């Protein structure tokens, strides 16, 4: 996933002359334009936004998915009540999602920003550093899971081999099996990707920033910490917002790595996440469509906070112009 900043400046000039041009369109041009925008929009709306709305509707219903659409029953907020009060997995999942987010905000994200800030100085070998650190972003989260399995494996993994904790009965740490440890172990693997991803995004932001600001601050005798916190960081507000949105969205989307690491059926105590619960509801034996949709609605509501604030902040300027 990637996010985009506003290009408000680029719009300048597109406005006034554009409206004149519209009138010069022939009938055939209008049909062509209609198809050009209509087909992709239809597909996007049909496959992304219609299911989103249907999800909300289905969350108030009960359906086992086996009988036809006629067997869907309206049950009010029953699914939500079950989720909040009865389900043994919902609250742990919420808790793990929150831990994931807080961890990402506190560690890999600032570290990625820090790396970007260091790499932005004109230093030698910067290409090598960037390439090496960025490699984890290029491989899939699923493969990341396999690679880290070979590191966390209790008997043969790298970590236990180094620590000498691969002796059952004597000293034995099950990094991915122990429900108190596995979330943290997975978070380290996820941070390996996240920090690198943030680094490259922030580096792009820094490259776009005016270097004279930094130089002026240095000439005025500001320490490097002061230069960053008082000059560079505030000047990069758009990219800061992107980084924040990416961090939140990635925390909510976390799925592949956890699913792979959790083993054959995709669940393991200690590794419940909202995304995992929703997927298991579909992949599992008994599919509870209404309940799965209610879980999705919770995820949707949480996601809409960063998504909407991002979209409105990005497009506000364009609207004004």
């Amino acid at each position, binding site marked *: 996933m990637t996010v*985009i900043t506003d290009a408000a400046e680029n719009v300048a000039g597109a406005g006034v002359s554009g409206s004149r041009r519209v009138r010069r369109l022939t009938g055939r041009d209008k049909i062509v334009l209609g198809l050009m925008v209509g087909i992709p929009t239809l597909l996007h709306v049909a496959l992304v936004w219609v299911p989103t709305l249907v*999800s909300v509707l289905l969350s108030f219903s009960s359906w086992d998915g086996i009988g036809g659409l006629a067997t869907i029953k309206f049950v009010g907020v029953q699914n939500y009540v079950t989720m909040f009060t009865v389900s043994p997995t919902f609250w742990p999942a919420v808790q793990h999602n929150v831990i994931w987010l807080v961890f990402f905000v506190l560690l890999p994200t600032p570290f990625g920003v820090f790396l970007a800030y*260091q790499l932005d100085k004109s230093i030698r070998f910067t290409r090598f550093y960037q390439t090496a650190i960025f490699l984890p972003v290029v491989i*899939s989260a*699923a493969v990341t899971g396999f690679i880290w399995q070979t590191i966390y494996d209790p008997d043969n993994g790298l970590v236990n081999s180094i620590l000498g904790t691969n002796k059952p009965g004597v000293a034995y740490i099950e990094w991915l099996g122990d429900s108190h440890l596995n979330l943290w172990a997975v978070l380290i693997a996820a941070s390996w990707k996240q920090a690198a991803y943030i680094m*490259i995004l922030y580096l792009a932001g820094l490259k776009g920033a005016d270097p004279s600001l930094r130089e002026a601050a240095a000439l005025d005798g500001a320490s490097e910490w002061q230069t960053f916190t008082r000059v560079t960081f505030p000047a990069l507000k758009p990219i800061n917002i992107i980084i924040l949105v990416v961090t939140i969205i990635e925390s909510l989307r976390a799925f592949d790595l956890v699913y792979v690491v959790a083993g054959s059926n995709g669940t393991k105590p200690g590794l419940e996440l909202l995304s995992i619960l929703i997927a298991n509801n579909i992949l599992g034996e008994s599919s509870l469509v209404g309940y799965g949709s209610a879980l999705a609605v919770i995820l949707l509501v949480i*996601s809409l906070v960063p998504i909407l604030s991002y979209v409105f902040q990005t497009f506000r300027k364009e609207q004004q112009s």
Partner: protein
Amino acid sequence: MTAVAEVPATAASRPAPAPRRKPIRPARVVLHVFLTATALVWLVPFVWAVYTSLRTFADTSQHGYFSLATALTFENYQNAWEQAGLPHYFLNSVIITVPAVLVTLLFSASVAFFVSRFNFKVNLLLLMLFTAGNLLPPQVIITPLFRMYLLIPLPDWLSNGSGLMYNSFLGVILIHVAFQSGFCTFVLSNYMKTIPHELTEAALVDGASVFRQFWQIILPLCRPAFAALATLLTIWIYNDFFWGLVLFQTGANRPITSAIASLQGQYFSNQNLIAAGALLTAIPTLAIYLALQRQFVSGLTLGANKG
């Protein structure tokens, strides 16, 4: 991730353009040590996986994995490739990724052309819709989408014999297109806004239709953006795990990234094979990244900066 505090006031001033050699500053040395250490730490998981994959099972079961190898061999790669039938799954990945990338680019370019070259009232709404849709977690829509796919009939030749959108390559390709066109539309519309209007106006005066303006003037000028986005999309779609997992009933149709999870339990009995299988899966993306690094990074950052 340790030495964070050790990079203090690293040469706050940029080096003046002095003709003579710059003196070695201790702060710079500390910085290089820190960055080298970080880069090496970041490479450790790869190196460990590669090392494990190159050793024979006999060697590792006798001496343990954390030991010096007696011999290095590509045997595990060969076994993973043949036993698990990996070529079949790679082919699935190609069948999904190539059309998905091309259609996404075509669709996004069309919408981007519309919103960037004309001044309609719906433009802003369209862009917001696409951008917001692109940011949704896929799990939000999967439950109804899964049901929808089970209800949509498709002719057999389009659906791998399932007769449904579910379990078909087409279904997975379409969801990739729907999702990814959000990001690409935004990037391309920013890019197209930087193309001077005089160019299309001149064509208009010559009587060129809207389609010709799009196809013969705007599209060729967007080549750098297409190169960057195509690189990025190929890696993303190839790396997709979720859609490939959920929207296929049988493992046989899954792309390699999703298939590898179930293959692991079936065929990869030891760590050496798991590591080899995982690395084989990663090779295409690593190759694309190392070959087209500039396109990839500029694709990511096209979005993060102004077109």
